[in-house]
């Protein structure tokens, strides 16, 4: 009985952490793309990368502090030779994975240019994950950052290292 309770507790504790990870890999997409950027960094790789971020450089120090708390960074960028070479339903397939804790904070829609959607996985006051979907006619970028993201630190980082200065507000454009 105690073991069952323990297993249930572990499952319940692990569930939120697992829920933050979003599948952004779609079979056949990379094969059709002319150029692919694939970054997969789990917690272990992030800890390793942190060791090699300079503590003297202010930008890298700030990035190290942010990265230290993260459980994963996953980025996929696909560039295609022709318009319409990727299935636009992929965007929807990413969206459908986002549960009720995910909130859309930015939604940019353009008929001919880029559509950008930014989602935060909010757990109380904590932002536990980030998803960015940027869909252009010939380019698709999917970003999933897993782990607690300190917005203050992100704001502090803004403007440095090419990272934009953002005022993050919760907006619902649906």
């Amino acid at each position, binding site marked *: 009985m105690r073991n069952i309770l323990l297993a249930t507790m572990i499952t319940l504790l692990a569930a939120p952490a697992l829920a933050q990870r979003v599948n952004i890999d779609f079979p056949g997409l990379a094969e059709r793309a002319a150029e692919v*950027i694939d*970054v997969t*960094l789990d917690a272990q*790789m*992030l800890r*390793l*990368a942190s*060791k*090699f*971020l300079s503590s003297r450089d202010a930008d890298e120090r700030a*990035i190290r502090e942010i*990265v230290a708390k993260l459980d994963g*960074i996953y*980025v996929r*960028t696909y560039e295609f030779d022709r318009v319409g070479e990727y299935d636009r339903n992929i965007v929807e397939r990413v969206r459908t994975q986002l549960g009720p804790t995910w909130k859309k904070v*930015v939604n*940019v829609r*353009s008929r001919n240019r*880029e559509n*950008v959607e*930014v989602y935060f996985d909010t757990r109380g006051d904590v932002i536990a994950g*980030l998803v*960015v979907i*940027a869909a252009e006619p010939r380019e698709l*970028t999917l*970003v999933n*950052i897993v782990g607690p993201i300190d917005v203050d630190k992100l704001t502090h980082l803004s403007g440095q*290292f*090419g*990272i*934009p200065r*953002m005022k993050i507000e919760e*907006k619902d454009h649906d």
Partner: protein
Amino acid sequence: MDIERELRSALRRKSPGAGFSNRVMARLIVEERRPRLSAQWRAIAAAGLLTVILGGWTAHEIAERRQGERARDEVLLALRITSAKLQEAKSHVVK
């Protein structure tokens, strides 16, 4: 009686022959040298083992450094891409 004669013959004192003492001494020197050679070989073996351990450790350090630097570059690339997309979103929102 033959047995008696044979025994006497067998137990008769014999001269060791010329160079016997030299041969014995030469053997003794060889025996003395053996442990010294063994110590040298042990030292060589220890040095070899140390070299292998240090070499392995260095190779591991180099591999880990390369992997770490690659991971760092990927973190920077991932954040650049993310920031670029956030910048684009922001530019639309600000408009």
